[in-house]
């Protein structure tokens, strides 16, 4: 059942999406009916009773019509009551998380999403979930309010810094769906995008093992560092070719002289790199804003070493 979505709505990919669409289109057609009624009536009256000629004549004394007024008060109220009840029932289904859901911890922070799986796997901006299984999202923010919004699943929930909020969905089809931030959160609010990759259960399990596996030995540090450079979103702020984005470029960084905002100087060595990863606000290079979030809980010991190795390997 290919699901292209309609003119007004994106593809309905979650089990509840079609219910939201059903209510949307019910309101849409009721509104269309009343809108056409109002515009047609007004147009007809305006053309039928337009002023002909210059002379001014009296108009009839129609001051009110009790029946008509009761009608157009009661009918809208009844329709609105129906919409309210339908909307509230849908809302409860959207927000009450089913018992057997797979729980993923979502953390929103300034300008990327990080997902922690029960098995200890962490991925940034890229949530891999099995198809046909309810997924519960336990969400919190590290700094300002963000909002977890997946149009295809029709779910949206603000992510608050001081409280957990929850959302859930069950994807119907395998595929890749956009994840956006819907609450204004600063400079890169519009590029705080992510992907929800819905895969078959086997692929999901294979991905999980491979992800858990990569935590352990096997890959040489430099290659692991290069993989982390992309998967941990370093590329959004630090380039490899010398261009300045939100942060200094990694190209030829190692061994060069760094001048900080407070004017002090220091050569870039392993300790400085390690400290800048785990505690970025400690020493901020002059000309840059202290907006880098801490990776304290996001990187394992081995991953920090891998990143340092990778940065060291980027000769000028």
């Amino acid at each position, binding site marked *: 059942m290919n699901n292209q979505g309609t003119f007004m709505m994106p593809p309905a990919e979650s089990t509840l999406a079609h219910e939201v669409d059903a209510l949307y289109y019910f309101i849409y057609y009721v509104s269309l009916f009343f809108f056409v009624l109002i515009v047609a009536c007004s147009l007809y009256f305006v053309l039928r009773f337009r002023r002909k000629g210059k002379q001014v004549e009296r108009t009839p004394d129609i001051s009110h019509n009790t029946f008509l007024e009761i009608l157009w008060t009661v009918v809208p109220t009844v329709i609105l009551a129906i919409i309210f009840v339908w909307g509230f029932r849908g809302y409860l289904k959207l*927000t*009450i*998380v089913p018992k057997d859901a797979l729980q993923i911890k979502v953390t929103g922070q300034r300008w990327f999403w990080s997902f922690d799986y029960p098995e200890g796997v962490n991925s940034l901006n890229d949530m891999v979930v099995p198809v046909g299984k309810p997924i519960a999202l*336990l969400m*919190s*923010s*590290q*700094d300002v309010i963000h909002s977890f919004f997946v149009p295809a699943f029709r779910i949206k929930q603000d992510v608050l*810094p*001081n*409280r*957990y*909020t*929850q959302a859930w969905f069950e994807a119907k089809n395998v595929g890749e769906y956009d994840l956006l931030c819907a609450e204004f959160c600063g400079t890169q609010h519009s590029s705080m995008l992510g992907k929800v990759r819905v895969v078959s259960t086997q692929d999901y399990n294979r991905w999980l093992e491979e992800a858990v596996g990569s935590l352990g030995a096997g890959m040489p540090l430099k290659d692991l560092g290069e993989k982390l450079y992309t998967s941990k979103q370093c590329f959004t702020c630090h380039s490899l070719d010398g261009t300045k984005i939100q942060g200094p470029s990694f190209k030829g960084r190692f061994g060069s002289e760094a001048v900080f905002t407070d004017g002090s100087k220091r050569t870039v060595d392993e300790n400085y790199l390690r400290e800048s990863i785990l*505690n970025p*606000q*400690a020493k901020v290079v002059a000309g840059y804003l202290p907006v880098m*979030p*801490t990776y*304290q809980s996001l990187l394992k010991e081995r991953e920090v070493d891998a990143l340092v190795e990778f940065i060291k390997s980027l000769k000028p």
Partner: protein
Amino acid sequence: MAENQQQHHVTPLWVYLGVGGALLVLTVVTVAVAKVDFGVLVGVSSLNIIVAMIIASIKAILVALFFMHLIYDAKINMAVFITALLFLGVFIGLTMFDTVRRADVYELEEGPIKPKAKIYQNQ
């Protein structure tokens, strides 16, 4: 619109002194009552706050009616004052609908995650 004698209402002296005395007595009462613990009424944190509020409301009504001449004045002024209190109640009441009922479905949505959000820890 003839220049009739403006019938400004002059409140008799004993009314002012009586109301003043009543207010002072009520202040003493409310301080004394605060020391007595009325125990906990179901649903409300403690009965003390209700008693304290009742006494304060009596004092406020006395001030409004006699000192602010609401009892002698045009009814529109009374209506304005009551509307103010009504909508103050609406403001607090509806906000409480949210803050008190946050844990309706899930306990974890109630209290703060941890006293300090991460961003401030390393500053």
